[in-house]
């Protein structure tokens, strides 16, 4: 009990920078939402129940153009399919006895960042750590979108552009420190970025294939890495 509270607080602390970064990114997202014709409340609801950045952008495009619900479902499946892999990876991070209910709660906010800090915990993941991070960061994301709709046009273009890289800065902060410790990860980070760049140049693949870029490259590169650099068992690690 006391232990859980400790982890909850730790998660809240680690959730603060994420919430601030989320606020900035979601603010930019809110500007898109407004252009798509959403009200501030609708943007808040969408952001707060989905916690997805790329998915949000795709959603506002579809809503703005009046696309079908089926298109919305398929697009979200494609754009967010990486969370399927993250969820699978997270399944191994929990102590095997962790209840379905706790897993289901954590699942609600498997975002790139919350997943990143959860997987970076030592040993098994205490779900209360993720709860703490969630309770701080979800409002950051939702209210960022809310204020983006209300105040988006108050901010100069240059500020909005600058804010748009906050997300990538966070990604770097998650992947670079482990890359420093583990040479294989460092190598994979460089290869992944290079192949991602090359993939975008292969325009003959068409837009449909391009929209699967993240999942295609993630599966191919991770699989190759698993075959060539299988991870040695660490008894104490999760």
């Amino acid at each position, binding site marked *: 009990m006391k232990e859980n509270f400790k982890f909850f607080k730790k998660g809240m602390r680690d959730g603060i920078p994420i919430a601030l970064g989320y606020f900035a990114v979601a603010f930019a997202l809110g500007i898109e939402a407004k252009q798509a014709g959403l009200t501030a409340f609708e943007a808040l609801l969408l952001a707060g*129940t989905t916690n997805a950045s790329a998915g949000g952008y795709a959603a506002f495009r579809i809503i703005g153009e009046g696309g079908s619900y089926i298109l919305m*479902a398929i697009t979200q499946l494609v754009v967010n399919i990486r969370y399927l892999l993250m969820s699978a990876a997270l399944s191994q991070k929990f102590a095997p006895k962790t209840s379905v209910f706790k897993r289901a709660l954590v699942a609600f906010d498997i975002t790139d960042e919350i997943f990143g800090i959860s997987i970076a915990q030592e040993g098994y993941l205490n779900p209360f750590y993720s709860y703490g991070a969630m309770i701080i960061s979800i409002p950051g994301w939702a209210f960022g979108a809310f204020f983006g709709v209300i105040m988006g046009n108050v901010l100069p273009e240059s500020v909005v552009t600058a804010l748009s890289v*906050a997300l990538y800065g966070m990604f770097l902060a998650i992947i670079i420190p482990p890359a420093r410790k583990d040479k294989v990860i460092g190598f994979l980070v460089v290869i992944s*970025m290079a192949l991602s760049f090359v993939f975008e140049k292969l325009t003959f693949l068409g837009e449909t294939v391009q929209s699967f870029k993240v999942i295609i490259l993630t599966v191919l590169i991770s699989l190759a890495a698993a075959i060539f650099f299988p991870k040695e068992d660490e008894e104490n690690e999760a």
Partner: protein
Amino acid sequence: MKHNVYIYILVMAAVIYLIRLLPVTVIRKKITNKTLKSFLYYVPYVTLAVMTFPDIINATSSIWSGALALIIGAVLAYFNLGLFGVAVSSCAVVFISELIIKYLV
């Protein structure tokens, strides 16, 4: 046909939650297959790296400001500045470098 925003949101939220929910609740046991384990271990780093580049240079007004943000962000992350520090620094780099670019061009 007129579409309802709340149904869009419901469809979106349901699809995303199912994607996130299924693996973590269905896979309850420790995976013992070494290749599969290694695969899942590498997934987060690969996926975040793929999403970062070249997207970061496409997100900004000039590819140079984005490239600079990437380099400085990576260096600061290397020295463990943390999520918030790296994110804010990247934004600042873009803001300042684009001011300079605008001034020069």
